[in-house]
């Protein structure tokens, strides 16, 4: 393993965006800018596929590890992947690629700067998912804030500044605590390389406080109730591509963080806080589903449904069962595909009608039949119908939860009924009925790039619904090892 494939994945978009910076752009958009971005996105996607192809799923060890000295004796630039992180890298490269393709539709000005932000975002996200050192992780994790802040603040809607600041402050507040926790971990263990920390373990007496510090950061990013109010605002104001990245990738950093750090570093504290997390997850599922039911703005509706879906994720992670954690990972991937697609779908309507209010629409199935079909696929994915990837995730999570607590699983299952209610009602209000708004008749059906993007996501949603084995197979050993280590830790503490 000589070729530094992970570093290439991280660096390629940065280098690419550097080139883009120097392409001369007049006010008219310069096609070569988009072409270059497209090329970089595509190359990175292929590279990540190659990574997956080379990946050995029969071991839980980190692979493709690169370790370079950075701040000597303190922090090393150490990266690598295991079964859990590799899927998120694939998701990132895929979604970014699709975002770049969609840019022409929904970004009207400063395309160059926008593409640079998106590519920087890609680098940082990939960095998050493959860093093996807490400090490196923190840098990437926080770095991601900046391009997102810009994307919302520059290309957003009317209240973009308010939303951008709300987003920034919320997440920053959480992360400051995480930074403090990372520093104290260094004081306790003498290293920030978390593979070493895994082996060494952290003294039980420090775990709870550290867990809470990490939790505050992840809970905001997930977002968990009651730290969720930034999300609907951020989504509503963000441009389509921004919403897609936010929903599909940014939120997943938190779920990934829970699995990697909360579970991996602080097993005893995780065990201790299970009731707390379950409670918040249940509230998220039921509460936001009910709120979603009443939304008048479709983007807000989907944003709230994201919170509910992420509630399932946190629920599954803290069951510490094979099915629960695998389900959570599948649910995150699935939500990455489905919510990205739903936000793109909202973008399709917004580009044509410039409104997101549901009651301005109605009966558009006869105007845009092709659009109606793909939208239905994602509606069903969000509802968690068997045969879509959403079902695999939710089902595994619930079956895992049921092993731990009947009542929690039962209440969470109610969320599935509510999901059907708000999604189908949305679909009905948008697509069915008579056309009363004559402006709608001017809308044209999907163009080729929209068809390509949406059907790519649609086919993946259905494919993984019927055959999730490629995903499950990749994560199986890593998750299994995680649980084994976790159980070992709990047992040892109990003996003491």
């Amino acid at each position, binding site marked *: 393993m000589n070729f530094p494939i992970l570093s290439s994945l991280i660096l390629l978009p940065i280098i690419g965006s550097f080139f883009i910076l120097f392409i001369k752009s007049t006010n008219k958009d310069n096609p070569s800018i988009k072409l270059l971005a497209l090329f970089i996105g595509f190359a990175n996607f292929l590279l990540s596929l190659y990574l997956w192809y080379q990946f050995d799923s029969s071991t839980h060890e980190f692979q493709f590890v690169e370790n370079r000295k950075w701040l000597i004796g303190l922090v090393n630039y150490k990266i690598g992947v295991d079964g859990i992180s590799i899927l998120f890298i694939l998701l990132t490269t895929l979604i970014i690629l699709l975002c770049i393709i969609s840019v022409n539709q929904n970004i009207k000005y400063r395309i160059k700067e926008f593409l640079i932000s998106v590519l920087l975002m890609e680098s940082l996200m990939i960095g998050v998912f493959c860093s093996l050192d807490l400090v490196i992780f923190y840098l990437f994790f926080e770095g991601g804030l900046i391009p997102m802040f810009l994307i919302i603040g520059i290309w957003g809607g009317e209240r973009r500044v308010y939303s951008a600041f709300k987003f920034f402050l919320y997440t920053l507040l959480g992360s400051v605590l995480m930074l403090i926790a990372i520093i104290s971990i260094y004081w306790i263990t003498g290293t920030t390389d978390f593979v070493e920390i895994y082996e060494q373990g952290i003294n039980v007496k420090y775990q709870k406080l550290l867990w809470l510090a990490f939790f505050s950061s992840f809970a905001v990013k997930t977002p968990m109730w009651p730290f969720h109010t930034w999300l609907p605002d951020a989504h509503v104001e963000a441009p389509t591509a921004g919403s897609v990245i936010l929903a599909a990738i940014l939120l997943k950093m938190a779920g990934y963080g829970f699995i990697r750090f909360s579970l991996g570093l602080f097993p005893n504290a995780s065990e201790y806080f299970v009731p707390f997390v379950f409670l918040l997850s249940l509230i998220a599922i039921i509460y936001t589903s009910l709120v979603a039911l009443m939304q008048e703005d479709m983007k807000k509706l989907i944003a709230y449904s994201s919170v509910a879906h992420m509630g399932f994720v946190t629920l599954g992670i803290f069951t510490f069962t094979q099915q629960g954690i695998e389900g959570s990972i599948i649910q995150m991937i699935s939500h990455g595909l489905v919510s990205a697609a739903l936000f793109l779908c909202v973008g399709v309507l917004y580009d044509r009608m410039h409104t997101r209010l549901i009651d301005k629409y109605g009966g558009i199935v006869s105007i845009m039949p092709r659009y109606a079909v793909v939208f239905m696929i994602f509606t069903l994915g969000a509802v968690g119908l*068997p045969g879509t990837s959403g079902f695999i995730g939710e089902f595994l999570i619930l*079956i895992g939860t049921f092993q731990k607590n009947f009542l929690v699983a039962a209440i969470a299952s109610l969320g599935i009924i509510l999901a059907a209610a708000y999604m189908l009602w949305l679909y009905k209000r948008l697509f069915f009925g008579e056309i009363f708004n004559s402006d709608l008749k001017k809308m044209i059906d999907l163009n080729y790039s929209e068809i390509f993007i949406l059907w790519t996501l649609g086919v993946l949603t259905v494919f993984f619904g019927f055959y999730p084995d490629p995903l499950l197979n990749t994560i199986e050993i890593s998750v299994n090892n995680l649980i084994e280590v976790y159980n070992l830790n709990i047992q040892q503490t109990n003996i003491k």
Partner: protein
Amino acid sequence: MEKIILFLPLISAFISGFFGKIIGNKLSELITCLFVIISTILSIIIFYEVLFNGYTDNILIFKWISSGELNVNWSIYIDSISSVMLVVVTLISSIVHVYSIGYMEKDPHKPRFMSYLSLFTFAMLTLVTSDNFLQLFFGWEAVGLCSYFLIGFWYKKNTANNAAIKAFIVNRVGDFGFALGIFLIFYLCDTVNYSEVFDLISKIDNKNLIFLGISFNAVDLICILLFIGAMGKSAQFFLHTWLPDAMEGPTPVSALIHAATMVTAGVFLIVRCSHIYEYSELALSLITVVGMLTALFAATVALVQDDIKKIIAYSTCSQLGYMFFATGVGAYNVAMFHLFTHAFFKALLFLGAGSVIHSFQDEQNINKMGGVLKNLPYTYFLMLIGTLALTGFPLLSGYYSKDAIIEFAYLKNSALGYSAATIGIFTALLTSIYSWRLIFKTFHGNYKNNNISQSSMHESPLIMLLPLFVLALGSIFAGFFFKDIFISQSTSTTFWMDSIKFLEPLSKEHPPFWFVYLTPFLVVISIPISFLLFVKYKNITNYIVEINQPIYNFFKNKWYFDELYNFIFVRPSMSIGNFLWKKIDIEIIDRFGPDGISDLIKKLSSKAVKFQSGYIYQYAFIMLLGFSIILTILIID
């Protein structure tokens, strides 16, 4: 061969759905019909093999989910139960496919319609041929989805859309129970494959679980949870409200999905799980009670409805109640038999009603029909056969299956069995009355439609009548021919083999002489009574209605279930949703959270700004003050 049966409908759905516009109406009709008919022929061959050669098979298609102990495959499982279901589903489906060519002739979205029908057929086949609970659940939800598509097929009609959503969501309530049942099975058995679960059930028979602070027997709990799923899909009491509304869909859909196949999935589930249910006396009693209630309730409502399709829908609901209490008293094979015969005559009635509606140009109110006996002779004749079969007129198919249910309930020799038998007989009488009411009001008496002149009424085209003849043959002969195979006390066990489990063999006694003849007698006598009530002396009927106004309204409004559910579930969840959003999210979390904090910081900083006044003497004074405080502290120390 089994794979061909399963995938032909899927392929034709795909072709007709995505390329319907390109290949045109005619070709997509041809492909969908042809493919389903091929499936039917192959299914009959399979049934024949099972019947005479005891053929069973379990075919693996490919791996679905594998996570920890959970291993589930896509597979095809052929045994006696699934072979019967294969025949029922494919046969009724191909009949409905052909009928739809005529019925939907003028619809602009015909390929889409045919595609949905084929897709439904595929989903239903995956449901019945599953070898595990998860694929069953897939089929379960997929048929629900197709039902949603087809009920809302006329998407411009608001009522149709609402009915479609209602059907999906009420079914999801049932599925909620079903899913919990599957979770529980996995929790106890570490597997969801039928054969492994069935082997383990006798071992976990005595296990108890604490749920919500109450201790339950594990098997009881599994059975009750699965039954909740069955109640949703089969429109049993409490979860029945979606079925009458589902009549908003095109009539062929009602015949296929909401009469013959999908709604019987609940019965299929219970029969399939007889290996589990046999260990739970409690669940069986519950099923009997719910079945009885549904049978009676739906019959009382059917008595006073005016919409021709709603009458038949409630009738379906009621007949499903029969099937359930048959399983409740342990006569699973009899339930399957009634499912089998019911598919024929109920599809016949629905398609016949469709023919009537077609002739009346989409009029469904039976008060606006009447006297068209001579205009629609074939339809009349066919519906007559359907009605006779449904009411259980001697020697027609309903007679064999329904009377067998009542007899087995009687032979159960328990209080519950006797009451089930009593209600069964009474409901049979009601069934007969409302069915004849439908026939008399639709075909006899005076012509009452003001919009269409009677002379312009004409019989439906041959492509609609021909399928009805096939169903009529089934309605007449299915009972007589198949009774030995399905329910005979001596020969039926060779057909069912291990697919149905009886802990104790069914009673081999015979009920007393008077009992056997009671139901047929009531059924026959009710024909002239209905004729008098609904044709000759309508005044008496009106008088009865008048003096019993409250009861009439109670029945007419379907026991006020819709209003009740609206009041308990729908409106509260909306207002709670609004409250959580507007009050808690915006007014509490945002106000005291991010907005509050940023306001606070703003205020504090505006205060802090005042300290930086720029006057040297102020700064000097503060410095002096600070210096003296520190000095004081040091000195005191």
